[in-house]
Every structure is written in C-alpha cells, then in structure tokens.
C-alpha cells in the first residue's frame, strides 16, 4: 500500500536541457548530396525517446530527414543506428540517458538508403536465403490431426533463440563483420543454432557444416563479443556461436 503510494509517475523529471544533435546526412540518390553532419538543437522533454526527438526534428527543422521506425516499442528491429558511436535501438533510447551532445549515424555494414536509414531488410533476407533459416522437414503434416508433441522445455529453449529481431546491431557491433562483408555474423549463427536444436528440423550436422563450416561462417568469428554486448534482445550469442563452433568442429573432422 505505502510503497505504491509513494510511486509517482515513473518518468524522468524535466531537466529542460537543450540537446545538440549531430546527424549524419546523405542522400545517395541525389547527385548533389555529399556525406556530412548536420546539427540540430532540441529542447528535451519528459520521457523523450530518440523516436520522438527525430520526428520532432523532421517535422520542424529537417523535412527531408530519413530514418526508420515501425513499432516504436523495441520489438521490430527497424530503428537500429549508431548512437554516439554505439549500435542501439533508437526508439527505446531515452534522451535523458544521453549526454547533451548526441551523434547519430546510420548502422554501418548495410546499404545506405539515406541519412539514418539503411537496408537491413535486404541483408537479412540474403542471410536467410543463404543459411536456409527455415524448418527442413520431409514429413507432410496433416493439419487436421493432433499436433506432434514437443518437450515444454525444448519449446522454451527454441523461443529463447528466436527472439532475435534482425535489427543488425550485432553486425554493426562486430569488427569481423565490418571488415568482412561476407561474414554471416552472430545473427546468422544464432538463427542456425535455433534450427539446429529444433527437433522438427531434419538437417544433419554435415548439412549445417555446408553452410556455416567455413571462414564466412562460424570459423570466421573471432570472438570479439560486440554482438553479444550490443544485442538489444540480450540473446546469448556467444554461447550459441560456441555451440555451433563445437558442433561444426566435430562435423568438420568427421
């Protein structure tokens, strides 16, 4: 009773700072555009996220500013960008947690669409096709019949890995992926691990080896661990890469 009575509205109290934004600007479809930073000032407001801030900047100061938001709730993975140099989801970053100078840059490692907007979708689609991130099963399911059973823990374990939102932070946070564009990255390895532990997927380790048993796959990972530390969903990426590495090492020498 008392404890909750003391609870005031749980948002940051107004500090009325003026935030200085340095935003990367470039429109690759406009021949006259050169990559540069542009500066904008914005009065901070209560519980202002970068989603709110960027929309306000666009509506009042920079009508041509490009950025991507979809869910604005940290679940769709659209809005990853470099916030003061580090990858993160803009929509769930509270301005109050940032210094008064904020630099925003598009996520590196992906095709630039314009300003802060990059084509993560295309990259992820390519990754899915390359790694075949779907259940490979030879059985035909009868959808009228009672479903096949699965251990409850197994289902939870699979979901644990399926929580990836393909935001690309693990690619932007990985030195290997930055240097070597062909590297599948933590996102790919984690997704493949998700299918590997799924009893519905009939692929053998030898088949998995064919797609990730190489230097662009699991053996390309140099354990820099940026992926794990910048993943907004806090997926156990290092653990999954290790799991794939062990399995692929065994598959490789057999």
């Amino acid at each position, binding site marked *: 009773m008392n404890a*909750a*009575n003391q*609870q005031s*509205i*749980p*948002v940051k109290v107004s500090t009325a700072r003026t935030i200085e934004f340095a935003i990367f600007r470039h429109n690759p*479809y*406009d021949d006259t555009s050169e990559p540069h930073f542009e500066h904008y000032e914005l009065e901070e407001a209560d*519980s202002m*996220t970068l989603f709110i801030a960027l929309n306000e900047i*666009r*509506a009042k100061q920079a*009508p*041509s500013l490009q950025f*991507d*938001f*979809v*869910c*604005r*709730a*940290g*679940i*769709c*993975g*659209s809005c990853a960008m470099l916030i003061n140099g580090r990858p993160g989801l803009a929509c*769930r970053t509270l301005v109050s947690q940032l210094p008064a100078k904020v630099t925003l840059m598009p996520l590196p490692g992906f095709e630039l*669409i*314009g300003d802060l*907007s990059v*084509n*993560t*979708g295309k990259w*992820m*689609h390519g990754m*899915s096709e390359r790694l*075949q*991130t*779907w*259940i490979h099963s030879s*059985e035909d*399911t009868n*959808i009228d*019949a*009672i*479903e*096949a*059973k*699965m*251990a*409850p823990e197994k*289902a*939870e374990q*699979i*979901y644990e890995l*399926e*929580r990836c*939102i*393909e935001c690309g932070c693990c690619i932007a946070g990985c030195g290997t992926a930055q240097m070597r564009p062909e590297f599948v990255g933590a996102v790919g390895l984690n997704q493949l691990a998700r299918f590997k532990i*799924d009893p*519905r997927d009939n692929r053998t380790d030898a088949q998995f080896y064919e797609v990730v048993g190489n230097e662009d796959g699991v053996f390309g990972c140099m354990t820099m661990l940026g992926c794990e530390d910048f993943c907004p969903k806090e997926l156990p990426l290092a653990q999954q890469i290790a799991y794939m590495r062990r399995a692929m090492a065994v598959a490789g020498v057999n």
Partner: protein
Amino acid sequence: MQTIVTDALIIGGGLAGLRAAIGVKRRGFTPLILSLVPPKRSHSAAAQGGMQASLGNSAKGWGDNEDVHFADTIRGSDWGADQVVARMFVHTAPKAVRELAAWGVPWNRVQKGDHKSVINGEEVTITERDESHGLITARNFGGTAKWRTNYVADGTGHSMLYTMSNQAIAEGIEVHERMEAIALLHDNGRCQGAIVRNLITGELMVYLAKVTCIATGGFGRIYRVSTNAVINQGIGTAIALETGIAKLGNMEAVQFHPTGIFPAGILVTEGCRGDGGLLLDAKEHRFMPDYEPEKRELASRDVVSRWMETHIRNGHGVQSRFGEHLWLDIRLLGKKHINSKLREVKEICQYFLGVDPTESLIPVRPAQHYSMGGIRTDYRGESPTLKGLFAAGEAACWDMHGFNRLGGNSVAETVVAGMIVGEFMADSLTTEATLAISSTAIDSQVNEVRDELASFQRSENNENAWQIIEAMQSVMTDKVGIFRHGEQLAEAVTELQSLYERAGRIKVSDTSRGVNPELCAAYRAKKMLKLSLCVASGALAREESRGAHSREDFPLRDDKHWLKRTLSSWPTDASSPSIDYEPLDVKAMELPPGWRGYGGKERIDHPDTPARQAEVDNVQASAEDRFAKQQQLMPFTECLPAPFRGRNGRLSEELES
C-alpha cells in the same frame, strides 16, 4: 516507368499477406508481395499475447471446441459479425496453429502435473493431464469461456511472423520491400494491380496482376494514442476506398485496448490480465469486480476499456503530469513468471517507463488498438463490388469481428484468412481472372497519381503535412474515442472535413530525388483523412451502442434498427464519404442476438429474434451430435476451400469417445 507483371499481387507482408501468398504459390501460380518494410518488421510481430484456436489440450481448455469458440466470438462481436465467416474461422483456426507448429513456431507446451496459477487474484493449483504433456498449451484471454489462447511466451506474433516469413522465403516467394501501393489499377470493374512508389528511390512503378489482395493491416495511426506501429496508416485500405468502387465495412468499429502504457500508448499484452494481473485505481482498489462481478478484468476489451474510462471520470484515476491513468498490477504473478512468460512486458516497462513490473505498478490507460472495419469482402475475401480485389487480415472486413474482436482472434484471423483467401484467389486465377486492362486506363490512372504528387509542390501551397496529421489524430482521439456523443461526432466530422480541404494545399518543400519523407506525409495525410472521415461519419450515423462503438446519447444496443453493417464508399471526385448499410439476417443466425454475458444487459431486440431463438433451442434440444446440429442451424462447410473441410482432431474428444 518500370512495369512488373504477376499472377497475384499481394499488398502487405504481414501474417495475412504472407500466408495468402504461400497458398497461391502452392497452387502453382506466381504471387508477388509488396511491403512498406521488410516483412518481418510488419506489425504482426507486435502481437504478444497469443492466438486463439480451440485445441483444448490444457486442463483449463479441456472440453473446448469450435462451438465454444464460435459463441465467444459472436458474443464478443456484439452480434455484429458474419456468423458464417466466424464459423469458417473457428473451424480453420486449429489447422492454422498446427500448420504453424509444423513450420516451426515454438508454441508453449503443456507440462504435466501441478502448476501454480493466479486466477481472480488468488493462487490456485491447476493439474495438467499426463496425456496432454507436450501438446500445445493455452492461456486465458478476455471474453472467452475456455483458456484458448495459444502462445509463445509473449512473443507470439514475432514467432509466427518469423516462421511465416521464413516459410515464404523457403517457397521462393518474391517480396519487394520498401514499396508502397498508392493507388489501385482497375478497368471495367476489375482490379488489375497497383501503382506503387519505391520508398528508396521515390520512383513510381506499375504492378499488373490478375488478382490483387490487400493485406495491409490496421489504420490505428489516424488516432493520436494508439498501440499500432507508425506504419499502420491504413494506406492500403484507403486506396481501395479511392477506387470509388470498393467499399469499406463498419469503419466506426474501432477497438481500444485497456492496457496501453501511459502516456506512450505502447501495448502491454492482455496476457498480463489473462495470467492473473489486476487493474487498480488511485487508491489501489481493484475496481473491475465492482462493475463486472463475473468476468472482472477479463470481460471483453470494449467493456473493460469503458469501465476504466468511467472509473477515471468518476474521479478514481491517478493524477499525473500527462493526465490521468490507472494501474496494472502484475507483481502478484511473481518474478519467475514475469521473467519468462512476460519478458517483453518487462522490457517495455524498463525501457519506456523506467520501472520494474515485478516490483512496481504499471501506469495504463486505454489506447486505440484494432480496426474491426476494413475493406468489405465476401466470405471468399473478394470485394463484392470490385472484382479481382481481395483483402485479408486486419485490413479486411469479411466480418468475423463485428463490433469488437476478442484478444487472440486477430493473429488467428490473419493466418486463417491467408489460408482461405489464398485458396480462393487461386480458384479465381484458375477460372476467371485475367489481365485485361487497357494501356489507356493504365496511363490515365498513373497520370492522375503523378498529378497529385506534383500538386504538392505548387508554389501557392502553404500547409504542413505533419501538422495536419497531428490535428487529425487529435480530433480522432478526443472526439471519436471510447465514449462517443452525437455533438462531438458532428464536430469531428466538420473538423476533419476542413482538414481534408487543407490537405489539398499541403506544401512539399523538398524536391530532391529519393524517398522524400515530406512527400510521403503529404499524400498519406489525404488518404488517412478519408479513412478518418469514414470512421467519424459512420460513428455519427450509427445511433446505438454496439461492441466498441459506444454512444452516450444512445447507450443501448438496438438490434431492431441497427443490426446492419455500415458500408462507406468514396465516389470519385466527392469530398466526403457516402454511407449505406447491409442488413444482417437474424433468421439465418446460428446464435441469435442476446446478452453477451458481460456489459450492459439492456437492449432493443430485433423482431425476428424470438422466433429464431425458438428454432435454435429446438435443434439444440435434439439428440443429435454437435456437428449435425450445427449443420442444421447454419451450414458452412461448403463455403470452405476443400483442403480445410476436415474435422479437427482433439484429445478431449478422442479420449471421451
């Protein structure tokens, strides 16, 4: 200009669009999907709580079947739904869950033995059968007689969408991402594709197709406070309206979800209450039992949202800088449950509120959530007026939700509709659909679009697109919200009308190549205003309260005058929508209108109701099995595509027969 030709153009890469495309592809035709965003970012991903399907595996779902699901759905709809469509839906939903299970969705499973659970604020023990161990389990959701909501922790939509999207990739279905359909192409009363704007280069393109399906989701962003994604602007719905031929159904039926976090409007799932969470007021009093002694927090969404607003009006809201709100309390569910089954909820509270829901209360207030209305189609998903135009998912009104949709019935609908409409599109491609649009028709329609886009750059224009959108959103939230009143609605219509005129004078200053966000806002503003006008006008005209549509000046449900579906259309060159109605036939209903079991009991009955009720009672009293009775009351199996007609296997039925 680039022209692309395909068999089936599917606009929308959410659950509905993806599943429809898979259906078309499996029948040997070529589908092509357009999406504003990569399909996996569609708003289907946001569905946390779950998907309803009457598997009846878990102890609390034992004995569930299509009949129970059907009755819940119709009651939820406040008898506004098309009962045949609802029947088709409840029959196909278990198949949809099972198909998804085979494709990889890691549905949470039944764990045999005793479990602690929180029901009605008290801890109870539920014992799961050994036989059910490992089958798909379900949680409780509002407005249902059984625990029927299948789920994947609180990332159900995410898992479903990823599985579906991966399946589409596996089937080699082409998806053109970052493409926006901004007009439909049609000739001789037949839809033949769309005019599409490339959201990377800003170029216009023509997609020609024998059949077109709109699966563009909801249009919640016409409201200021909404749980919807920012892309849910209803452009797909609007372009159907703009043909002047296709019609929109029940646009005034807009759902408000009880638990949007305050003030951001981001949703925390109904699963919070389903799993035992409570609603508290400023004094931390649990108030729902005072209003709804039977269903309490778990009455249908429209009812709970209204009681919350009523409670705030009665002075029990929590005061805050941003206005008033109430509390959601999930602390009693325990850390373990919240950290595993309600993890997204926890993250949302952490990131957007800075609180830990295992220890603190969550500030909530109802927010716009779902559009029951949409492109009117028949049970096959095709527009009755514009041939070759199909619609599925939240964008459509084939009408299984009537005036209020049950939680968990929407993602279920998207997949079921995708399955069914996909088959009917393939049927249409097999029999009648052709590409027969003249090049003059294409040219003139493309030129129209070009002219409109160019018009925003006229030098005499002076309006700002974002300001107009904001003004529209405020009108909708303030005047076409949870409680509605004739006077306010009339004001809303007038204000929207003037905003619509102003939208014609929007100035786009940026002329560089590329996507041009200012231009996007400009053309979308006009389309969104058209939808808003349909919603507000429909709400003003409907002088009764039904489901989510609640008129303070007409508090009763009035079956006598209003058991009918609103149809809005926008005749070419008109500046406002025209509205007509389509009656619902009580005599054909399997479940004649009555009390929902929650909410107000008073209503004005339809004259045919007693007679039909007697017929139904008669049949129900007979000794035949449930299938035979159902068949007698309202045959529907013939309406389903052949692959989905089979009976659903169910453990409870197998064990008991």
